[in-house]
């Protein structure tokens, strides 16, 4: 299958390991990945902050770039649930799949041949859980990873407090939320916190790093891209 990759702007800039992992994973599964280099941002930052005019301009631009790319491909994928929600809200016709949706629903694969012998806590981010209704697709994928132990933690479905502009405009409340989240995660005994949105992982990871909690964050794509028998 030819798959168009939408790499969120903050992944492109700050966390390229995530889209790189998507490329490696999909190529390992025998698919061809296309990355339209004209892509920039879906407009989520502006939309969430109330800048509708600017968000609409970025959204139009996004649609143009990806409609052209999708014409010579089979699907569009992004490793960010919140970007997927933003794009679908703006243009429901442009079928953009979040990574776990693409793997489970479109490619029909749950065991991607990964190995990751660690204790992992999966944080169901709000946009995956309530925005996309991704359900247990990410968990299904994680359960099939060799050596991986899923660990539960308290109040898992509660927001981490990121919320884009919320983290800046209401920094105190945002920090209070992520402090509780990190507390639950630390108690769980997990080594790695996994999610399908790097925005939330940036937030949780940023707090864990400040607290020197010893936990690290990894996007689902990074775990799934770790090949069985390969380096961990």
């Amino acid at each position, binding site marked *: 299958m030819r798959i168009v990759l939408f790499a969120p702007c903050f992944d492109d*800039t700050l966390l390229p390991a995530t889209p790189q992992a998507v490329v490696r994973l999909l190529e390992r599964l025998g698919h061809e990945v296309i990355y339209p280099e004209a*892509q920039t941002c879906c407009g989520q930052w502006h939309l969430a*902050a109330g800048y509708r005019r600017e968000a609409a301009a970025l959204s139009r631009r996004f649609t143009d770039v990806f409609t052209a790319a999708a014409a010579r491909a089979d699907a569009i994928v992004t490793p960010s649930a919140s970007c997927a929600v933003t794009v679908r809200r703006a243009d429901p016709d442009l079928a953009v799949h979040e990574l776990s949706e693409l793997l489970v629903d479109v490619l029909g694969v749950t065991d991607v041949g990964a190995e990751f012998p660690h204790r992992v806590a999966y944080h169901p981010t709000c946009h995956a859980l309530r925005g996309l209704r991704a359900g247990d697709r990410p968990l299904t994928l994680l359960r099939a990873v060799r050596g991986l132990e899923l660990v539960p933690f308290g109040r898992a479905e509660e*927001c981490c407090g990121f919320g884009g502009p919320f983290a800046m405009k*209401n920094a105190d409340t945002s920090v209070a939320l992520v402090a509780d989240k990190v507390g639950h995660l630390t108690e769980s005994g997990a080594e790695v916190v996994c999610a399908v949105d790097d925005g939330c992982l940036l937030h949780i990871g940023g*707090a864990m790093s400040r607290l020197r909690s010893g936990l690290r964050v990894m996007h689902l794509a990074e775990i799934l891209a770790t090949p069985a028998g390969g380096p961990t």
Partner: protein
Amino acid sequence: MSRSPWLHLLVRGQSPREGWIVQDPDGPDEPRFAETAREALTDAGSRSRLRQESARRRARRDAAVGELSDWEGLRDAGARRRDAVLYDLEARLLQLEAEVSAAGGRLHWARDPAEAADLVTRLEKDAGSAVRLPGPLLAELSLTAPPTGAGEVEAEMVVFGVDAVVAESATVVVLGAAAVRRVARAATVVAVAGIDQVLGDWADLEVWLQLRARSDGERMSPAVATLCGTAPGDGPRSFHLVLIDGGRSDALADPAGRTALWCIGCAACADVCPVYERVGPAGYPGHRAGPAGAVRTPLLEGTRGTAAASLPFASTLCGACGDVCPVRIDVPELLLRLRGRVVDERRANPLPGPELLAMQGLEWVLGDAARMETAQRAGSRWARLAGRTGRIRRLPGLLARWTDARDLPAPPRETFRAWWRRRRR
């Protein structure tokens, strides 16, 4: 000690920073949500109580809702009925006025909370003594203090906010044992209702009562009073209904804003709201707290005031509220629209604020892949200096709001697009 042993570590840099939102010189300058929240968050005792209370109410609601085989169908019916009544509101209000007169009562129209408060105080003065039952509607009218000359337990007149009004029979619906007891004994009732609280008929009320009870964590509301005007030998001798607009017809004119008026006044959205659970009611200056207040207060009062304008931003847009709303109000979508309204109003300021300039600049940068890449290169050169240890612990200016309590990973040597290009070669 609260559940957040980290809080004292995380909340640093307590000095309030200059706001992102440029203040409107014409609007009332009340504290923004962020400022009230800062105060509230430091009260560990109240945070602990709030957390327990929210958890208790969530568990009760989940149990009450979980018993029903077709809760989703009931929600659909509720949304449909609320939409239908509000679509036809003018006719329903006129019907209500006629029915109230026919039932021997009197309907008073009030344009805004001040007019309604005037009306009520005049009625109280005529009666000599009155009791006010506290509630969100009387709070909207700023009638929270006892009326002058009050104090008698068995006052002749009882003033209260209703929970619903049925147009076809001029029926005022009141929930809660204390209110029901008071209202049932009153010789004169002064019922205050928002025009959005009108239901069409008793079939509407049937659905409304089920949704409200379950959302309150009950199978049935334990105490419900239904007053239908006056009747000889039974109920009040005198019956007043004060109907207040207070920005509701403006909200009705907005197709999205209209859905906020579907609200049936339960607190399910507040009970699941992670922000409300941390901050509590103090952060919400209007007559309703939690997500419903964050939507309704700016919608009804407008966004000129700094406090009301800050409310649409007092949410992570996590969506928990929309999932529990018994009438399926899409709260996150409404918050997004209200954020847009606030920003559009700021655009009209003669001097653009720093946030507007930053966001417009960001849009210009993101509007072209080459510009974005230039910015990435410039930014990462500088940021790698700031984050030589692999993480950035301090950022300047407004970005410090992030790094006050959270690190940021130092940007990588190579962006994704650079990696992609190198790999293709």
